[in-house]
């Protein structure tokens, strides 16, 4: 176990190094000239050269990347081109709302996905099953921005059940989190349905029934814990998609989180902020996957750690 954990941690660090390299390459190297952008149109060649030297952009590539990496390791993500503050400060101030929204969103995703998947599996090949599976497809085929806007129109503007946007109270988080949850639940409900159908056909379920356990006990003690195992690695994979959804949903609902920060930075081509948010997201994705991989063998002892 400790050896496995060390190896996985080492691998996670390697992955993050790779992510930092590609992000750096794509975002700092491809755009024409950050120094010129920063200086503005009317700046003289001298000013631009000054800024370039200040930012270390006149150094050779490997040295630039090395500087960036050493700063990164010290938690220094650079300064925002536009807002003139530390990127890390900006990110820290946005972290809490985003984590709040993520926690609610993923909870809704799981609650909706698992219960609908269970229902579909139990009512297999009936109209209910077909309806639920069609619904799950509609969910995964709807872009977040359309769902957000239509929900906002329907539930906030027309029905006045929710506030139009903003942050603070529980009612503020409800609509954006439900949007994320409803759309994301489709994959989970399909996954839970098929794994549950498989579990229902196992001999130990027949045994459990034969020894006279109640339906509810068979379902919640024997079927569900086994059927839910494939959901765990899925959460890890889902985080990346979820973060993408956050960018859109936060922008539409005016949620003051990382997604909105990223979106504002993208509009103004504020590269250090974009890189910062990308790195933070990558760390979140890698950690989520790591936790998921560690949890699976705990949930199902048949799966050995070293095989994965």
């Amino acid at each position, binding site marked *: 176990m400790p050896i496995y954990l060390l190896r996985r941690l080492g691998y996670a660090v390697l*992955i*993050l190094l*790779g*992510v930092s390299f*590609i*992000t750096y390459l*794509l*975002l700092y190297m*491809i*755009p024409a000239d950050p120094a010129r952008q920063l200086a503005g149109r009317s700046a003289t060649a001298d000013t631009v050269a000054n800024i370039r030297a200040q930012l270390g952009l006149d150094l050779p590539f490997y040295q630039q990347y090395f500087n960036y990496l050493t700063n990164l390791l010290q938690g220094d993500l650079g300064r925002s081109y536009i807002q003139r503050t530390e990127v890390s400060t900006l990110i820290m101030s946005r972290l809490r709302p985003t984590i709040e929204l993520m926690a609610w969103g993923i909870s809704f995703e799981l609650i909706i996905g698992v219960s609908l998947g269970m229902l579909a599996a139990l009512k*297999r090949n009936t109209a209910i099953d077909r309806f639920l599976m*069609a619904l799950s*497809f*509609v969910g*995964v*085929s*709807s*872009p*977040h*921005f*359309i769902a957000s*806007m*239509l929900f906002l*129109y329907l539930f906030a*503007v027309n029905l006045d059940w929710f506030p139009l946007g903003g942050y603070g109270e529980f009612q503020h988080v409800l609509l954006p989190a439900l949007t994320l949850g409803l759309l994301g639940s489709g994959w989970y409900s399909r996954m839970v349905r*098929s794994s549950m*159908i498989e579990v229902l056909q196992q001999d130990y379920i027949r045994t459990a029934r034969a020894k006279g356990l109640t339906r509810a006990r068979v379902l919640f003690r024997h079927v569900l814990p086994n059927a839910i195992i494939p959901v765990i690695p899925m959460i890890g*994979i889902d985080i*990346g*998609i979820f*973060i*993408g*959804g956050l*960018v*859109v949903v936060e*922008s539409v609902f005016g949620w003051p989180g990382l997604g909105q920060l*990223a*979106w504002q930075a*993208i*509009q103004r*081509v504020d*590269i250090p902020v*974009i890189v910062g*948010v*990308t790195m933070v*997201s*990558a760390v979140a*994705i*890698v950690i989520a*996957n790591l936790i998921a991989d560690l949890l699976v063998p705990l949930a199902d002892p048949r799966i050995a750690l070293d095989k994965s």
Partner: protein
Amino acid sequence: MAFPTLIRNLCRHKSVAVSLVVIVTVVCLAVLAPWVAPHDPNMQYFEGLTMEGAPLPPNEKFLLGTDLLGRDLLSRLIYGAQTSLIIGVVANGIAIFIGTLVGVCAGFLRGWTGAVLMRLTDLMMAFPALLLAIALAAILQPSIWIVALVIAMVNWVQVARVVYSETIAIASREFIAVERTLGASSFRILFSHLLPHLLPTILVWATLGISTTVLLEATLSFLGVGVQPPTPSWGNIIFESQTYFTSAVWLVLFPGLSIVLLALSFNLVGDALRDELDPSLKGRG
């Protein structure tokens, strides 16, 4: 399986048959856009706005209403279908090509090359895909081809992983071993045995991938970093009218429905194709 049989089997499910009809209709509308669109998509009609300058709701002249500039929404949607499909085909084509190449190489060569290639896909999986796509599209001065390229760069990973595991599964089957003992070259095994067996998987992922591509293009265009106006795309129609969407909801509703309907259709057909082409799934579910 012969193509007509495949189509007939697919059409056994009503939802899949409807999806096929939707896809064929959208393709026809896109191809025939200059002849079927009732109006010029870029013409700003004087009578397309109210006296106060607001867009018109659906009426006899403009069947789905007009947008903020008095242009006919239906015509813009029909031309927008062209954009969606071009990007769907180009981006998805590139993604499938790269994904298959990486997956087959990694699965067939194994060893060092395979390990490095698959670690590369691990790396790509750690990226917040949409964030990366948005950032790239924003920085690269978006055009329809840049958008397609950005989407392909994000989407090939999934294909590579599926093709990789499929390649390994096929390469370990007996008939490949038999071919090897009979003295077939790797080249021959690759092209006359491996690739034909991979074709169903690739077809399924190509279909599902178009749905992902359509959604991603719409999202990028909605955020203003995708297809740029005045070229109509379903996403940028919503982008242009988002500030008015509470008073002119048709400007969000109709393009929104188009996006969902097309993506849903490709998803349903892809899912049915998978059931049809993968015999190991037969009789399940």
